[in-house]
């Protein structure tokens, strides 16, 4: 996987762009933060769906879990949680800036660690399923989590949960900047981690599982161990992304924001497929293109966005299953380090 030889220049360019972005586009800070979160979700989905061949609809479980956990810890560290949710949040209790940032830091740690543990615990049962059974089972898991959390009183049940409002520090812009840099940091961490994984034997094992799990097992690979570890890595970053998103949105609803399988749960699959499954850059490109497209649609065709989304899913899945990276690879195979045998290619053309 090489995208040209000037990789370091590319990375530094992206890094500088990422740091400068909130000053270049001050009006789009929230959108840019959401973009970072979407890229994290698509990239981590790709570990399952693209590299391992386990098409999961259930990563939304970890995202929503992280969201609820981060907000609950942030509130629960300083105030009684039940009273907070009952009074609708911010009216009775106010976080001081120190409390807010302390709570956020601890909350994000919990939001990352607990979903990882959950993934490890349920991984052995769920990852034993294959193919479409795994897909439907994880879909059920995500929806069940949404329905059940919508019935639990202490985290707001059906009426939702208001996350602590950003304290009065700095100027008006500081809230957007704080969340942008936080999500950008998580994005960088995710990218480094995923890139690191993809350059080791671990990725080859995941690919072996995708291509033929029985053979991989016969070759002496403990596939279950690797599958669980892969899922736990995804859960870690999904939880972090969820925690940030909860603070960014400012309001958590069980089925519409946190365990939103109909929206976020499908988005992550779609973004990875649009960019190209099983590539490092595919989900990143896919998420960017998708986010721009989505925001355009959300703005200009308000009300029809889900209709457009449904059509988009069908069109992408049917006509564009290889994604942008797959298309590029077919068009410029040399740039992906593939050698083409001219004779062989001609012979194939003649056969057609």
């Amino acid at each position, binding site marked *: 996987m090489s995208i040209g030889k000037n990789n370091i220049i590319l990375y530094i360019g992206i890094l500088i762009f990422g740091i400068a972005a909130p000053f270049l586009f001050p009006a789009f800070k929230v959108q840019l933060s959401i973009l970072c979160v979407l890229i994290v979700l698509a990239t981590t989905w790709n570990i399952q769906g693209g590299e391992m061949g386990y098409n999961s609809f259930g990563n939304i479980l970890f995202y929503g879990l992280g969201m609820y956990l981060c907000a609950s810890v942030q509130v629960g560290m300083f105030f009684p949680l039940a009273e907070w949710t009952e009074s609708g949040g911010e009216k009775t209790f106010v976080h001081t800036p120190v409390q807010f940032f302390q709570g956020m830091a601890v909350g994000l740690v919990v939001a990352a660690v607990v979903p990882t543990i959950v993934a490890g615990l349920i991984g052995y049962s769920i990852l034993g399923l294959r193919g479409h059974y795994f897909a439907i089972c994880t879909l059920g898991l995500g929806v*069940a989590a949404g329905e059940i959390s919508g019935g639990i009183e202490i985290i707001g049940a059906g009426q939702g949960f208001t996350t602590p409002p950003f304290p009065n520090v700095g100027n008006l812009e500081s809230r957007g900047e704080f969340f942008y840099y936080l999500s950008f940091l998580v994005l960088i961490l995710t990218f480094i981690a995923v890139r690191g994984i993809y350059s080791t034997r671990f990725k080859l094992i995941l690919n072996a599982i995708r291509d033929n799990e029985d053979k991989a097992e016969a070759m002496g690979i403990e596939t279950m161990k690797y599958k669980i570890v892969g899922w736990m890595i995804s859960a870690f970053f999904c939880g972090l992304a969820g925690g940030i998103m909860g603070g960014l949105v400012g309001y958590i609803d069980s089925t519409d924001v946190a365990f939103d399988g109909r929206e976020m749960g499908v988005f992550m699959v779609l973004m990875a497929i649009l960019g190209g499954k099983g590539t490092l850059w595919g989900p990143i490109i896919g998420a960017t293109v998708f986010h721009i497209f989505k925001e355009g649609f959300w703005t200009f065709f308000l009300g029809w966005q889900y*209709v457009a989304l*449904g059509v988009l899913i069908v069109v992408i899945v049917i006509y564009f299953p290889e994604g942008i990276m797959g298309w590029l690879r077919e068009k410029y195979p040399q740039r992906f380090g593939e050698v083409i045998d001219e004779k062989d290619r001609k012979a194939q053309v003649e056969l057609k």
Partner: protein
Amino acid sequence: MDFMVFQYPMISVQACLDGILLGILFALIAYGMALQWGVMNIINIAQGDLVILGGYIAYFMYLYGIHPAWGVIVSPIIMYFVGIAIYKLVINKVVDRDLFISILATFGISILFMQLMNFAFGADVVLANSDYGTTMLFNSNVVLPNSKIFSAFISILFAICLVIYMKKSRLGRAIRATAQNARAAKILGVDTEKVYAATFGINAALCGVAGALISITFTIHPYMGLPYTIRSFMIVIVAGLGNLPGVAMSGMGLGVFEEFADYILGTEFRIGSVFLLLVLILVYRRFKLSRKREYLK
């Protein structure tokens, strides 16, 4: 948690009867899913949305002054053509592909339908009132709405008709042949493309019947589709493809489970418990098979 259902036996009887009548309806939807899964190897996530669309057809007949029970006849006819249209536009491009492609494509259709229905019919919970009254049993300790009995009766009727049609008619034989071996059927002169279209149409028509019955007995809402898909998926994996008595039995079992979950856990956990049950069933099957070093495929 509320265990009143065990302290008063009549409530248990009520829950069981309600569950069985409900389960027969679920079994009808699941039969459609088993049909298309067996023949075309497709899992249709939009199954529940087809049910809800069928329900809205009956509801609109009710709004225009026609008795909603006629929807049982009108709705499948309309839904058959809706099914054919979906097949021609989308499904015929995913039939031979990976199952996940079909899941995702039908997920797209499901979102599309959900939203279009939301625009067209509004986001209110509606029901078509049939004015059938109720039946009292056991010294009026158990109350059964006649509409539920009617809907169970109609479901059984349609299921029997379909089984006979599958056994006797030419198209039914072609469908069964295609399910066994599509390639061989093609060689022997069966137009499999037509068979696939008809199968999807029949499935949509079954959904239409079930939807019309649901609009009479329960309520319909544009977003209520997905639980029906999950229920029928669950029934099919418990019973297996092409096992009609099994489908009926597990449908009723699911209905009874849901009624008890409703009483014990409370209505807000009803849908959640259905989805959780799906996960538990799949995990149970997985552990059972893994003892023989096999897996669900």
